[in-house]
C-alpha cells in the first residue's frame, strides 16, 4: 500500500470489506464507550484516512508488549492495526537492520514531520550516561529526544515506558525513568500494562486516526475508555468479596469454587485496566479467572508494593523491629519515671537515698 492510498482503498484491495471495517469500528467504539453514532463516523474517517506513520522505539523492555500486540488473538485485529499504520521503524518487526534501519527512521521523521506518532516500549536508562541501553551508537535518551522533536504525539506502550516498570523497580540499577520524564511539550499517552491489552493500543491509534485528537485521559495519562474502571469494579468474583468469602490458599475449596482472591494478594481494587471486561486471548480469560490475583501491572511502581501475595490490607513494611524497639524504649522510659517517683517518695520520707 502506498502512503497516498486511503485506508478504505487499501483494505478493499486486501479483501477487507467496508462491512468488516464498520464491524471493527463499532467494536472499538463499543470498547471505548463512544456514542452509537461514533462507530459509523469512525468507519468513515478511517476509510478516508491515510496510513498513520508510526515510529516504534524499543528501549529497556522484554518485547512482551510487541508480542502482546502481534500475537493478539484476532488476526483481523492484528491485520487492521498494521493496515491502519505505516510502521516505519520497529527493531523487532522490520526486515532491514543496522544503518538501513536508522535511515528509515530518519526518513520517516523528515517526510512526516509534525504528523508521525512515536510509540515507545521500555523504560529509558539514565544511569552512567545512559550506557545501559544504546541503539546504533546512541543512548535511548538521545534517540527518544531526537525522534519526538517533530512528532504529533507519543504513545508509551506498556508499564516500563509508561511508569518505569520492572527496570525502575527498587534499587533501579540503571536509573530507569518513564518516557514522560524525558518528553516534555508533546502529548504523551500511557497505555500501561505488563503487557498492555492489544485492544487498548488499537483503540487509541484508531481514535487518533478517526477523530484527529487524543482520547480522554485519566490523571496518569491513560485513555479513560480502557483505564476508567478498576479490575475490582468489573470483577466477576466481586459478589464473593462482598459476602466475605475468600480463598485462603491457591488450592483450597474457596479457590476451587471461584471465591475472591483478596486474601491471596489480589491488587484488583487499586488497579485500573480492562482485563476483567476485554480479557485476553480473544476474551478467553484473564489472570483472576485463571485463579491468580491481579498483580496491579498497569499501575506505577507495581513491583515495589510490598509483594504480590501480600494482601492489600496489610502494610507494606515489616514493622517488627521498629515496633519492638519502640516498645522496649517505652518500657525503659516508663521504668525510669517510676524509679524517679520512688526516689522522690524516698526523699520526702526523709530517708537518705542509698
Amino acid at each position, binding site marked *: 500500500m502506498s502512503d497516498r492510498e486511503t485506508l478504505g482503498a487499501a483494505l478493499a484491495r486486501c479483501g477487507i470489506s467496508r462491512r468488516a471495517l464498520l464491524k471493527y469500528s463499532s467494536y472499538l467504539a463499543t470498547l471505548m464507550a463512544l456514542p452509537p453514532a461514533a462507530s459509523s463516523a469512525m468507519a468513515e474517517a478511517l476509510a478516508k484516512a491515510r496510513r498513520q506513520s508510526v515510529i516504534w522505539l524499543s528501549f529497556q523492555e522484554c518485547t512482551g508488549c510487541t508480542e502482546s500486540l502481534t500475537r493478539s488473538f484476532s488476526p483481523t485485529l492484528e491485520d487492521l492495526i498494521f493496515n491502519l499504520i505505516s510502521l516505519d521503524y520497529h527493531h523487532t518487526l522490520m526486515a532491514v537492520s543496522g544503518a538501513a534501519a536508522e535511515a528509515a527512521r530518519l526518513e520517516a521523521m523528515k517526510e512526516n514531520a509534525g504528523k508521525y506518532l512515536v510509540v515507545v516500549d521500555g523504560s529509558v536508562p539514565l544511569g552512567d550516561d545512559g550506557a545501559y541501553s544504546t541503539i546504533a551508537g546512541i543512548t535511548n535518551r538521545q534517540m527518544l529526544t531526537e525522534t519526538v522533536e517533530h512528532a504529533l504525539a507519543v504513545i508509551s506502550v506498556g508499564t516500563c515506558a509508561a511508569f518505569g516498570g520492572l527496570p525502575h523497580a527498587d534499587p533501579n540499577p540503571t536509573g530507569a525513568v518513564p518516557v514522560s520524564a524525558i518528553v516534555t511539550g508533546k502529548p504523551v499517552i500511557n497505555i500501561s500494562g505488563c503487557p498492555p491489552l492489544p485492544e487498548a493500543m488499537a483503540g487509541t491509534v484508531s481514535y487518533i486516526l478517526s477523530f484527529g485528537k487524543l482520547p480522554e485521559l485519566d490523571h496518569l495519562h491513560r485513555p479513560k475508555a480502557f483505564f476508567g474502571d478498576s479490575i475490582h469494579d468489573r470483577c466477576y468474583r466481586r459478589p464473593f468479596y462482598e*459476602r*466475605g468469602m475468600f480463598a485462603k490458599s491457591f488450592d483450597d475449596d474457596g479457590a476451587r469454587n471461584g471465591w475472591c482472591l483478596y486474601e491471596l494478594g489480589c491488587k484488583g481494587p487499586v488497579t485500573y485496566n480492562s482485563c476483567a471486561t476485554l480479557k485476553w486471548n480473544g476474551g478467553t480469560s484473564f489472570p483472576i479467572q485463571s485463579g491468580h490475583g491481579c498483580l496491579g501491572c498497569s499501575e506505577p511502581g507495581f513491583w515495589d508494593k510490598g509483594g504480590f501475595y501480600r494482601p492489600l490490607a496489610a502494610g507494606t513494611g515489616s514493622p517488627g523491629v521498629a515496633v519492638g524497639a519502640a516498645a522496649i524504649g517505652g518500657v525503659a522510659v516508663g521504668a525510669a519515671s517510676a524509679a524517679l517517683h520512688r526516689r522522690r517518695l524516698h526523699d520526702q520520707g526523709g530517708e537518705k537515698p542509698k
Partner: protein
Amino acid sequence: MTLLDAARGPVLQLALAIFAFGVAWRLSSLLLLPFARDKSLPRTGAPPAAFAALREILRRSWPQKSFGRASLFMTVNSYVFHLGLALIVFAFAPHILFIKSLFGVSWGNLPNNVIYAVAVVTVASLAAALIRRISNPVQRIISTFDDYVAWFVTLLPVLTGLAAASHLIARYETLLAIHILSVALFLAWLPFGKLMHAFLVFVTRGMTGAYLSRRGAQL
C-alpha cells in the same frame, strides 16, 4: 511514592511504633510505681480485694438505678458503639488480614455488608454520644479537649472506611490511603489521651473497687 504507598508503608510503621512506645510507657510507668501497702484495718465484712475489684468492674458495666434514666442512654449508647467498633475492627476481613500481618493470627470474618451496616450504626451512635456531650450541661462542663479529640480520631477511621468501601467522593486508592492515615492517627493518639482506657479501664475500675470496699464505701 503515592499517598497509598506512604500510608501502607512508613506512615503506618511510624504510627505503630508510636503506639507501641506510648502503650509500653503508660503501662510500665503505672505498674512499676511503688505499691503503697494499705495499713488501715479493713471494715468489718469487707470482701476480699479481688472480689471487690471484680464486683466494681461488673457494677460499672451496668446502668445504675440511682441515676435513673439519665445513665441508661449513656450505657446503652456506649455499648452500641463499643461493640460496633469491636465488630468493625475484629470481624471485617481486610482488618483481620491487617492484624494477621502484624501478629500472625487470624479468625473467621463476617460478610462485608454486615460490617457496613454495623459501621453506619456505629457512626450514628458516636454522633449521638457527641450530641449528648454537648447538650448535657454537666457533661459539657467536665469535657476536655482530649474528649473531643478522642471522639474525632475514633469516628474518622469509621467514616473514611465507609467512604472507601462505598467508593464515595474520590478514587478507591485515595480513600483507602486516607482511611489508613486516619487509623495511623488513631493509633498514634491512643496512648496519650483518654483512649488509653482501652488498656486501663478494668485496672482503674478494679483498683477503685478494692480501695473503696476496704473502707466500707457502699458502692
